[in-house]
């Protein structure tokens, strides 16, 4: 029986990928990219989950052996920031594209042809 967390995370990745591959509007593609990144982050977090344990903060009443794996949380914290930076850059490029071509349809933007 596959865990619901894994299933959900991988479905999010696939939904994001589907949106990137099939949508023609650049903003929708960027939404797809964000969904995909969210899915990856959820997958990373669920790798480190240990059933029945609490957050890895050592305070009164919580000892070290009662915590879930703290490493994926550090990874996800980094990955979220990277995802936001990429999205911000992509959105500014999208604004610039709209100013030049007056459209956000990828099939109508024909700047470069090889």
């Amino acid at each position, binding site marked *: 029986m596959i865990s619901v967390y894994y299933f959900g995370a991988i479905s999010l990745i696939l939904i994001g990928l589907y949106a990137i591959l099939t949508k023609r509007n650049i903003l929708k593609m960027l939404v797809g990219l964000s969904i995909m990144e969210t899915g990856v982050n959820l*997958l990373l977090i669920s790798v480190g989950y240990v059933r029945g344990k609490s957050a890895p903060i050592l305070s009164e009443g919580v000892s070290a052996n009662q915590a879930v794996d703290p490493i994926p949380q550090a990874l996800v914290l*980094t990955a979220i920031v*990277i995802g936001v*930076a990429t999205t911000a850059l992509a959105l500014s490029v999208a604004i610039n594209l709209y100013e030049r071509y007056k459209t956000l349809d990828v099939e109508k933007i024909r*700047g470069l042809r090889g």
Partner: protein
Amino acid sequence: MSQYAALLIALPLMGAFLIPILKKISRSAIMPFLAFVTLVQTGIAAWVFKEVYTTGKPIIIMAGGFRPPVGINLYIGHFASLFVFIVALVSFLMVIFSMKSIKVEPKDKYAMLFLLLMLGATGMIATGDIFNLFVFMEITAISAYALTAYNKSGEASDAAMKYIILGGIGSSFFLVGIALLYGSLGTLNLAQIGQLAQLMDPTVAQVALGLIVLGLAVEAEIFPLNAWAPDAYQAAPHPITTMFSAFVVKASLYAMARILYLTSAVSSWGNVLNLLIILGTLTVIIGELSALRQTNVKRMFAYSSIAQVGFIAVGFALGTQAGVNASVFHMVNHAIVKALMFLAVGYVALELGGVSLEDFRGLGKRMPLTAFAITVGAISIIGIPLFNVFWSKMQLVMAALEAGKTGVIALILGASLVEAVYYIRLIHTMWFEGEGEKIGEDTLLGTIMLLLVALVIIIGIYPDAVWQIVQKAGKDIFDVASYVKNVPLMGVSP
């Protein structure tokens, strides 16, 4: 003493953070400051290179004094010291070129992104931790996206958007690969992954490695995910194009090879190599055939660059020591030759305002030095004896022969034939067609070009010295046991 090698990461970072302050004081000081930082970086890299090759021991830097696998470590072995030096040197040459060619504002942001791109590539080559590798890859990628869009034209935005979307997919794949590796082995340290690799479930390993190869293939310009490359090469500022081709690609290829060889104990490893050999072959074929029908010379060189990357990937996928050595040799040679060629083409674009094949008519009479540089580069890439690329292609062919992969030999020879067609067409256009007035060429850039030409010819005539260095660097990648032994892991055993 050897911990000072950490300055390779720290110096560009400090430089990048100082630039916004410097901008407030004096705008004209930004480019000289950039040249100064890259020059110092080249000096440190040269010292590290000398240190590693004289002692024969890699420099291991432990972040914060935590021993790996708890802390992050940098592993500057024979390979890393060689390529960190190449990265720093090419960056320095490109800063000199940038002083002439970057006229659009804002220069301070250009300088910052330039340093971050160099930092990212250096970090990717030096790191010993897989997640740290991901972070450095993203630093490289995000600065590369921004630099591609730097010219603010419609074309540049278009190219950058393609690059961002493909890069986003690639980095997500890579991260899923890391999640699978971490989930099955419980470690992120590359040396410990190498140590524990044989315990991995073959199916999980196959999926994880496949995803990692695909994820790195975006930056490394390997076939299904390289559509961004020709556009980005055409639209990016000229010095940046050189940096993409000379080392951003090399850093990703190295990361791919490093991870692949560390997990060579996994039983499904052969399948991953087969995947890479198929992708590499397709990259060569598509790159060469697309280059054949280009009229824009910068775009033609971009496709040629992609094809060379395919050779390197195929060499790594042979799975033998000879194949790895040949690939590393090709990486060094290709970095030198493509730095020369993109520099020359960028200079032509700067002087004549375009890089279509028409602009190259009579270039031999108008700009003889630049035309000579392009000619030497082109002849070298085709693989004619007495030039450097001949030797690395030769080594690739011999490695393929040894591994019994005759298809690869046919591929390399066939591709060289196609290369000959389009490069000789270009040489003919430059020297035997059209007329023109002589244009005074810049002495500084001329000197750099002549220096690179000299390097191409010297390696071509005396390949042995470089071949010795390259063999050590190749052993660094192939010999997993000594890599693991060199990293002082905290008494953790499988």
